[in-house]
Each structure stands twice: as structure tokens, then as C-alpha cells.
């Protein structure tokens, strides 16, 4: 391992997870503030000590709303901010926002940097977000087709993966069922009843080859994560979860992904993460075999399979048989995946719950703890670039 290990995640916090629209009459800003205060409490710092904000998704809050640093300062009484910036595009930057926080800290621009996502789907739900998008010359080539949500869009990638590699719906089912299993014992999880193969294969097809259970939840809530320099982190409440490496970006061949569909094979039936994974492992000085637990952005089951391939846990095209072998299960698997129940069964806060779970696995206090975890991977995306990855480790 040769990562810089110069910053660490020192605090995590979240609101309760609500079903779509049920967080009303709280506002998105109120939800975000609650998560920020909870993360400060977890870190053992006062909210007035926050001096940096590192967002992703252009500081948007879910769909069509925004977060704003000055508003947070006004409401929470934060006296001065010395860094406020966001990664571009959408959820693909979730894990990468920790790299933005690191950049601020290493540059000496800020000392306690918060990354926050808040969403409330009362006005606009995830499931139809593309159909409701404002018309522009680029999406005029996409929106007439009726691919109204991200799951509809990614079903086209899943079909190509099945065609090229023989991937079966049984593999998608395994992702959905194993992820649900991990949510059963979690008090905050939105789905706490077992999912059976009969449930899965009996569900309605929303965008064939994807059925209801291939789609993530539509959640209201907020999650915040605080990053600080390693020396500072050692003075705080919890053992530091060090940033071993973080990377965001991607290649032109993936580009706007399912918002343009210009990808050729093998990029089309992938997650777009392969170049990010390469940078991530090189910066960390580790490989896929060193990862103890993988928190894989799971908005839709096939994209978990394609990320497992792009992160080198199995060869390209073999993600289906890999998951069908039981490899990603918490109990009995070789690579426990989404031990928190993921976005499919715990809550969907646009990638933030994966970072929280990675921190808890490194601290050793996760509900579904993987014994002896030294390295945890969290990913953001697949989405239009940038997509991102983060490896957390123990303080050495």
C-alpha cells in the first residue's frame, strides 16, 4: 500500500430515511443541516469549526433543487468558509467529492470540509427525472424515446451486456436478493422484509430486461461526511478512516453515457469506471484482491455487475457468473458487497450511504461488519462523467 493517507473521514451523519415525499414539511436545507449537525457530533467538533464545503452533482440537492453554502452559514451560524466547490454532473461524483475535500485540505485552504447530499422527491421523483428534464438540443435526441428515468436508460446497457456475455436475469436477481438480505437487520433500512426469487421473477417489468426489484429506492433524506487532515483526525472522537486514494473522471468513450448512447463496445455494456479504477488502484498501491468490502453504487442491479468487472473483481463479461456464484454475499461471499443494504434496500441518498458504510467498516462498528476490514471501496456513478471511486483504510 502506498497511498498518501494524508486526510481522513472524521464524521458521518444522516437524517432518518423517508419514503418519497414523506420528509415534508421539512425542507431540503433543513434535512441537510440535520445531517451536517449529526456529522459534526459524530466527529466531536462544533459546527462553527466547519470551514469548507465540497459538493458533487453541481451542489444540486436531488432533482431540480440546490444546496448553497451561504444559506448553510446563515442558518447554522458558521462564521467563515475558506473553500466552497463542487464536482460537475451528477451522482457519479459522490465518492469523488471526498477527493475534492482532500484537495482543499492538502492545499491548506480548509481544515474541516463537509460533503453533503440532501434530497426530497416531493416535486420531482427520480423515476421520471429524465422525462421531466428541461428540453434542450442535446436531450432532444433522447427524450422522445420514452426512456424517462435512469433505470429505463440503463436497461438498454443491461440488454447489451446480456447479448454480449450471456448475462442472465438470475444475476440481477442475485444482486437484488443479496443486497436485501443485508438490509434486514438494519433499523434505518427502508426495506426490511426478505426478497425471494419468486418475488423477483414475479415482479412487473418496468423496462425489460429490468423489473421493479432492479430499481433502487426513491428516498427522502440527507447524509453528510466530514473530512480533515490526518493529524487533526487523530485528535477527534473516532479512529480515522484514512483516504488511501480517491479518483474521479473517465474517458470520452463513456462520456455522457446513457444520456447520449454513443459508446461503442466494450464501453457500452460497462460502468465507465475502468479508467477511474486504474487510477485509484495505482494511487493506492493496491489491487482488487486487497479490497475487503466493496460499497458499489447500486442504483440498478446490472450496474453493480458492470462495476465489479470494471474494478477488476472478475474479468469483463464474467460479472454475471461471478455474482451468481454467491461471491458478493455478506455471509459466505469472497467479496462482501453493499453490506449496508445499498440503494436497493437501505436508502438512496445518491451514493452517500456507501461512504458512510465504508467509514463504519473501517472503524469496525458496522452493523454487518466484515471482520478484519483493512480496505473499503466506495464508488459513485455509473452516470455521465465524472464517475468516481474512493478507498478508505485504517490509520497506520
Amino acid at each position, binding site marked *: 500500500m502506498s497511498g498518501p493517507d494524508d486526510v481522513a473521514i472524521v464524521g458521518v451523519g444522516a437524517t432518518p430515511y423517508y419514503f418519497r415525499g414523506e420528509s415534508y414539511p421539512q425542507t431540503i436545507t433543513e434535512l441537510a443541516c440535520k445531517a451536517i449537525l449529526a456529522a459534526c457530533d459524530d466527529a466531536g467538533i462544533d459546527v462553527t469549526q466547519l470551514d469548507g464545503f465540497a459538493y458533487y452533482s453541481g451542489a444540486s440537492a436531488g432533482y431540480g433543487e440546490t444546496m448553497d453554502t451561504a444559506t448553510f452559514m446563515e442558518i447554522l451560524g458558521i462564521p467563515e468558509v475558506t473553500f466552497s466547490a463542487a464536482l460537475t454532473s451528477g451522482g457519479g461524483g459522490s465518492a469523488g467529492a471526498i477527493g475534492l475535500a482532500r484537495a482543499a485540505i492538502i492545499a491548506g485552504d480548509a481544515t474541516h470540509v463537509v460533503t453533503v447530499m440532501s434530497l426530497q422527491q416531493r416535486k420531482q421523483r427520480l423515476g421520471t427525472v429524465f422525462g421531466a428534464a428541461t428540453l434542450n438540443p442535446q436531450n432532444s435526441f433522447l427524450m422522445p424515446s*420514452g426512456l424517462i428515468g435512469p433505470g429505463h436508460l440503463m*436497461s438498454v446497457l443491461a440488454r447489451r451486456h446480456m447479448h454480449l456475455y450471456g448475462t442472465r436475469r438470475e444475476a440481477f436477481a442475485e444482486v437484488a436478493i443479496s443486497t436485501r438480505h443485508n438490509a434486514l437487520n438494519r433499523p434505518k433500512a427502508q426495506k426490511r422484509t426478505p426478497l425471494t426469487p419468486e418475488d423477483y421473477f414475479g415482479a412487473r*417489468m418496468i423496462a425489460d430486461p429490468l423489473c421493479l426489484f432492479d430499481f433502487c429506492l426513491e428516498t427522502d433524506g440527507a447524509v453528510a461526511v466530514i473530512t480533515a487532515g490526518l493529524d487533526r483526525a487523530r485528535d477527534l472522537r473516532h479512529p480515522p478512516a484514512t483516504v488511501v486514494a480517491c479518483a474521479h473522471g473517465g474517458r470520452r468513450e463513456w462520456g455522457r453515457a446513457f444520456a447520449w448512447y*454513443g*459508446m461503442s463496445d466494450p464501453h457500452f455494456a460497462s460502468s465507465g469506471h475502468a479508467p477511474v479504477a486504474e487510477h485509484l488502484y495505482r494511487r493506492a498501491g493496491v489491487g482488487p484482491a486487497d479490497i475487503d468490502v466493496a460499497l458499489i453504487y447500486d442504483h440498478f442491479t446490472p450496474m453493480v455487475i458492470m462495476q465489479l468487472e470494471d474494478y477488476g473483481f472478475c474479468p469483463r463479461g464474467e460479472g454475471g457468473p461471478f455474482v451468481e456464484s454467491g461471491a458478493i454475499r455478506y455471509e459466505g461471499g469472497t467479496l462482501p458487497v453493499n453490506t449496508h443494504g445499498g440503494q436497493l434496500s437501505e436508502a438512496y441518498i445518491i451514493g452517500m450511504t456507501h461512504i458512510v458504510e465504508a467509514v463504519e467498516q473501517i472503524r469496525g462498528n458496522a452493523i454487518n461488519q466484515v471482520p478484519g476490514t483493512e480496505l473499503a471501496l466506495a464508488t459513485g456513478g455509473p452516470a455521465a462523467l465524472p464517475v468516481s471511486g474512493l478507498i478508505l483504510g485504517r490509520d497506520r
Partner: protein
Amino acid sequence: MTTPLSSTLPTGGIRITTDAATEPYWQAAKARRLVAPRCTACGAFRFPPGPFCPECRSQDVDWVNISAGTVFSFSIVRHLPGMKDLVLVPVVVEFPEAPGVHIVSNIIDIDPDDVHIGMIVEPDFVDIADNWKLPVFRGPRAACDSTDQLPAVPEKEST
């Protein structure tokens, strides 16, 4: 058993908007022609249309007629909110005449069970809002499989 045939979204509600780079595509569709932009300087196709060739950065473009393509991938969409009886087959089509061009639209008037990757589809045009026409695709007219010959030579058209 009769399966409902696929359609588009209700056409009166389908809207598009254009900019200087994309408008020729939609103007050609109004004339029931499917076209793709090819760089005059280096011959590379690009899609969707943009103001530069991503291979050589030239801004000179020829609009080339394209016709039949093959299904690169597709979905079958049902149960859209408020449109319970609608069946859509959103499709990504590739074109031997225009390497790298992927056009996203719908295959219409087909039993979704008959759609497969690699099948040949032909463009057609449906009226949408604001007097535009939307390029859509149809399966082969006669019952046949995807071993049909595809046209290989692009027809060049002046800019």
C-alpha cells in the same frame, strides 16, 4: 394471444428543440430523410451533431443520407405513469453507412417479442409537436431475419 404492438409516446406531446449544429438533422427529418453529420475534412461521423469534429476539430460538415440500420440494443417499456396501455421499444440503432453513429428512437408497430439485437430496421417519420417530424424505426416489411443485406455505400449530399 394478441400482444399490443409498440408505439411512440403520444406524438402531440413530443417536443424537440434545436441549435445551429442540430437543426439540419431535424430539417432533413421534416423532408423524411434521415441524415448524419460527417466531417468534410477528415470523414469522421459524429452524433449527436455538434459544432466541431471531435477527431480533427474542423467545423465543416456534410449531411449524409443514411437508411437502414441494425438494432444495437433496446428496452421494452411498459407501465409509464398515466400511459398504462402504452408499449414502447426504445432502441439504439447503428448504421453500417455511418460508423459510430448511434440514433436513439423507437421501433413502432412491432410485437416487442420479435425485436432482437442485430435485426435490421428502417427509418420512418411521424409528426410531432410544432410541425417537426421524429425519425422512428420499423422492422423489415416482409417476415425475414437479420441476414438481409444492408446498403453499404453512403449517398453524399451537399451541405
